């Protein structure tokens, strides 16, 4: 651990999401010094209102805990208190699989999508959904895995559900330490019960991703690729933002050096910052940078701030095939709220995305 005095005070604490004022102001200062829309044509023109809206406003997404549910009404305890949401006739719910909305359980953590922006009715609900994305560092028996999600997210236990074992084994044939895994399932206390493979397992060891194609001139803007989602962890549940795979290594302070191995599993842990640029070459950005992200499958776009470090996404040289085949590599790891806000289906795991750098 570095001594506090050795850390420059302007280093980003990527977990400092509770005091976002400094990061939100960065876009404002940048617009002041470079102008509204950069002369080089690389940046988006944004206003103070855009920046405010990017950080706070959820128009489609509602998160909370299920208090009561009937075939027609869902009652959630949200940050605003108890709220009632009418269910549309076509409302669908997910809780380990597609179920009638009325089958949701009291106490479930739920994330719901409104049918219309800001409207009262909801048409999609996901309950207790979770995801683990990272490097397998230990395996116990045929179905229990310890997965390292990288320096920002820590480690999680995955238990592969018996009924999903075949499905997951087909897409993840090497459930062995050192290989990557990305699964979606039901959250339980202390572990995830894996039910759905979120991608196909990359064939290489996590520490040896292939080098991405080189680019001449400037990095293309916009850039296309895959957008995925991650669990909130220490972040607020309704946070709108994304974990960016290429934070500036000089100022983001996400890398504090490798700790000595404390257990045998540590030998398989991979520091994604030490594996090169990752699977897609992205421009270095910082926490607070604004990106215009478009869901190519739903044709919905949103200005989103970078809220955390998504270096683990660098390790996955996969493609999303939700609508056509995306270009290779993960360009954004969205918060759950942002993923749903952009029209993504959480159980699908990804959508094809186009990203422009803004602010």
């Amino acid at each position, binding site marked *: 651990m570095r001594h506090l005095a050795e850390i*420059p*005070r*302007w280093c*980003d604490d990527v977990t400092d999401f509770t005091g976002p004022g*400094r990061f939100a102001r*960065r876009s*404002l*200062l*940048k617009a*002041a*010094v*470079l*102008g509204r829309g950069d002369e080089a044509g*690389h*940046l988006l023109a944004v206003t*103070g209102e855009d920046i405010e809206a990017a950080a706070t406003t959820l128009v489609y997404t509602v998160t909370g805990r299920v208090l009561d549910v009937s075939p027609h009404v869902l009652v959630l305890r949200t940050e605003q208190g108890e709220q009632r949401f009418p269910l549309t006739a076509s409302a669908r719910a997910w809780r380990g699989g597609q179920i009638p909305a009325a089958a949701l359980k009291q106490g479930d953590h739920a994330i719901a999508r409104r049918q219309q922006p800001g409207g009262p009715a909801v048409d999609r609900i996901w309950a207790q959904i979770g995801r683990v994305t990272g490097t397998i560092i230990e395996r116990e028996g045929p179905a229990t895995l310890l997965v390292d999600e990288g320096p920002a997210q820590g480690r999680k236990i995955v238990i592969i559900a018996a009924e999903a074992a075949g499905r997951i084994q*087909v*897409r993840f*044939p*090497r459930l062995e330490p050192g290989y990557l895994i990305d699964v979606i399932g039901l959250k339980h206390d202390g572990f995830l019960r894996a039910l759905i493979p979120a991608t*196909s*397992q990359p*064939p*290489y*060891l996590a520490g*040896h991703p*292939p*080098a991405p*194609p*080189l*680019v*001449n*001139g*400037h*990095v293309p803007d916009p850039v296309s690729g895959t957008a995925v989602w991650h669990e909130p962890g220490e972040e607020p549940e309704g946070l709108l933002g994304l974990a960016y795979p290429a934070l*500036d*290594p*000089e*100022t983001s302070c996400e890398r504090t050096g490798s700790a000595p191995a404390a257990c045998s599993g540590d030998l398989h842990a991979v520091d994604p910052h030490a594996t090169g*640029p990752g699977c897609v*070459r992205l*421009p*270095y*950005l*910082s*926490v*607070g*940078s604004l990106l215009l992200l478009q869901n190519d499958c739903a044709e919905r776009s949103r200005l989103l701030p970078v809220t955390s470090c998504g270096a683990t996404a660098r390790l996955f040289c*996969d*493609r999303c*095939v939700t609508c056509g*085949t*995306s270009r*290779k590599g993960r360009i954004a790891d969205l918060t759950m709220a942002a993923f749903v806000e952009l029209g993504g289906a959480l159980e699908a795991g990804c959508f094809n995305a186009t990203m422009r*750098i803004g*602010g």
Partner: protein
Amino acid sequence: MLTAVRELQIPLLAALLLGGCAAKAWRLLRTRSLSTVLVPDGLLPLRLRRPVMMTMYATEFTLGLGLIATAGKVGAGGPGLPATIVRAGTALFFLVAMGALNETRQRRPDVGCGCFGEFSETPIGWRTITRAGVLCAAAAATIGVPPLRMPSSPSTAELWLAALAFELSLIAFLSPEVGEILVRLGYSEPCELRRLPVGRTLTALHSSSQWRRYAGQVCAAAPDDVWREGCWRFVVYPGSAHGRAVDIVFAIYLQARRPPIRVAVLDAEADSPGPAGARESVVI
């Protein structure tokens, strides 16, 4: 003329087969993982993937060497049985490859063919499949070709060269790998991807005329905030102007020499340019 074109196919096919083996071996050495060069998941039962791929690589390598070894005079009066077997085997290899590529394209549209290692990561398209078909036809055309010899006249040599140029152009057109190779040959890292220490940025800033102009307003030795977006690094110093607290923002372009620098002064609590008013730009 036709015989000359048919003769040309033998060294060309051998070069492509051995080149493919070399590219895969290079990738294997770089990643130190056999699994990176295996057939994609979902196409074969798990237990068959490794033996099938090893057999395929061995076949590719053997056919490449075999084409060269049997190209000269083998036996008297003709190409001989070994040459015919190797050439027919090569045609069969590319025919099977065509089918396998088509199947892979249907079942895993997101993966590349891996034919030339890490250069072949573009998803399989009609060009890759057509290339396998062209090479299959080329291999079939070599069956029965007499032992290779040097061109008998300058006009024959010119014909060889013209046919070679045409065929290489056709293969290049059908190869998504060519674009990747050209990019690697002329690569220079874009500024958005270049790592540049903060210390160098601050040194460049402190030796600029913009810094000298605003240094009198700066109230702290160290910046309040430093961050980067693409090719620009931003440095914010707390300052004072006309008795009001201001933020002095410098934007420094990330290049090693003579970086352009821009500056703006904002009220510390406001969201618009402050008392100093204008933005300025300068190249030191």
